[in-house]
């Protein structure tokens, strides 16, 4: 038996690139579709700055907007202080791990904030977060 070794034939090293464009466009369209644009606008506020600001899971958060003049907004509606407790109680029922985030203007009066926190305490919405723009400090 005479074994004859044939010289390995080099395979043509072609990567089929014709479908690459399809893949890229698919990804592009996927990201475009899944991007959620911010719908809620709340009130125009200038957030205070903080270095210790930590990240919070967005799905747990309910926002209360407080502007400089002390106006309150929840879910894009201007609300009265007295109704805050009721609204938060409803949200708390849907999500017991709810965190109430204050999107409050840095020049809002502390009295207003204290009043809102009192309302929250009444309905046991005790987890709060003071939204702030992250600004590192030396």
């Amino acid at each position, binding site marked *: 038996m005479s074994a004859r070794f044939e010289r390995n034939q080099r395979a043509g090293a072609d990567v089929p690139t014709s479908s690459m464009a399809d893949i*890229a466009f698919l990804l592009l369209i996927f*990201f*475009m579709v899944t991007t959620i644009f911010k719908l809620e606008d709340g009130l125009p506020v200038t957030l205070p700055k903080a270095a210790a600001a930590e990240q919070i899971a967005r799905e747990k958060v309910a926002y209360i907007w407080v502007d400089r003049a002390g106006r309150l907004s929840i879910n894009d509606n201007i609300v009265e202080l007295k109704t805050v407790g009721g609204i938060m109680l409803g949200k708390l029922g849907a999500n017991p791990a709810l965190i109430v985030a*204050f999107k409050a203007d840095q020049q809002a009066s*502390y009295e207003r904030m204290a009043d809102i926190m009192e309302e929250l305490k009444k309905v046991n919405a005790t987890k709060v977060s003071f939204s702030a723009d992250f600004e590192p400090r030396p």
Partner: protein
Amino acid sequence: MRIKKKSRVDTTIQGSSMSDVAFLLLIFFLVTTIFNMEKGLSLVLPNSESAPKPIAKENILEIKIDAAGIVTLDGEQVAIPSIRDRVTKRILENDKTICVIETSPRSYYKYMVDVLDEIKLADARKITLRTGKR
């Protein structure tokens, strides 16, 4: 006179650079997408049902903010950036220290956040908010 039949030009689209274009767009959108993560200073308020517990006086670190935003720490006036070191020192001395932030209702919310930020930077765990006299 003989009219020559027009020769058809080969109508293939150059597909090889299409993927380059697509990826360029993809990367552009990836880079320009800003993830607006929610950032804030978290705090747990006291429950309305729980009766206020008496706290030993030596465990309390009282930080007062007056209407003009002047901060006093245990009766001594301090600058806001120096609060962090003071609180760190106190916690090292006594790990049961509870930071009480008493803010004047006529003060701006900003001052409370500034002080809270400093205390958070000092890694204090027990923080309470209190409202000053109206």
